[in-house]
């Protein structure tokens, strides 16, 4: 289980490969890897979005993402989980979050991955501030899943 907070842009596909390479003990054990990558759009609620700043409460963010990962491991039979989440200044098309779940079978990995993103969105203390034209505003709610 790993939780990483990143202040700079990251490549989720490279991060996924790197994490898996660092876990040779998983080789041959997992039959399913479910992933979710959240990427910044250039539109939201009918507005063009030029940029976004993602604020967080660092220690609480880490603590709750680890708790969510632990809960997923208690609810499903998982071999490993990885969460990487951005903070700071983000541009359209930048990845915001990577969630990955490894398990023997897809019946475990799919619901666990969904659990991670839905719990993250309601519990992890991040806040988005979007720049639209000359203005910026705080995003007040998540978009429906």
């Amino acid at each position: 289980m790993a939780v990483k907070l990143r202040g700079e842009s990251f490549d989720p596909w490279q991060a996924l490969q790197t994490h898996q390479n660092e876990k040779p003990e998983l080789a041959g054990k997992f039959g399913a890897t479910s992933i979710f990558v959240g990427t910044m759009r250039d539109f939201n609620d009918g507005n063009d979005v030029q940029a976004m700043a993602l604020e967080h409460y660092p220690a609480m963010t880490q603590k709750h993402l680890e708790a969510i990962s632990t809960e997923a491991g208690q609810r499903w039979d998982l071999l490993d989980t990885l969460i990487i989440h951005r903070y700071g200044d983000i541009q359209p098309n930048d990845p915001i979050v990577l969630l990955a779940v490894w398990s023997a079978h897809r019946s475990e990995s799919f619901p666990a991955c969904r659990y991670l993103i839905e719990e993250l969105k309601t519990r992890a203390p991040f806040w988005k501030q979007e720049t639209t034209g000359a203005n910026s505003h705080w995003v007040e709610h998540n978009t429906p899943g």
Partner: protein
Amino acid sequence: MSITVKFFASLRETIGKSDVSLDADNITTAADVWRIATDNHDPVGNMLIAINMEYASLDEMVKDGDEVAFFPPVTGG
């Protein structure tokens, strides 16, 4: 009693502060922390509260050395 108070995101801008150190004897609950740290600002309807980084309610008790945070609904992911 010594309490560290944090405000985040839109609530930080509403209150005009990010970090406050309280040292007062008339603090029992998170509501007292809010009242003193914000100079009696009305509680914001949808705000969330964390005591020592665990979600809490305004009527929850605080103790010396606690960190109490106030922030709007979260929007990560």
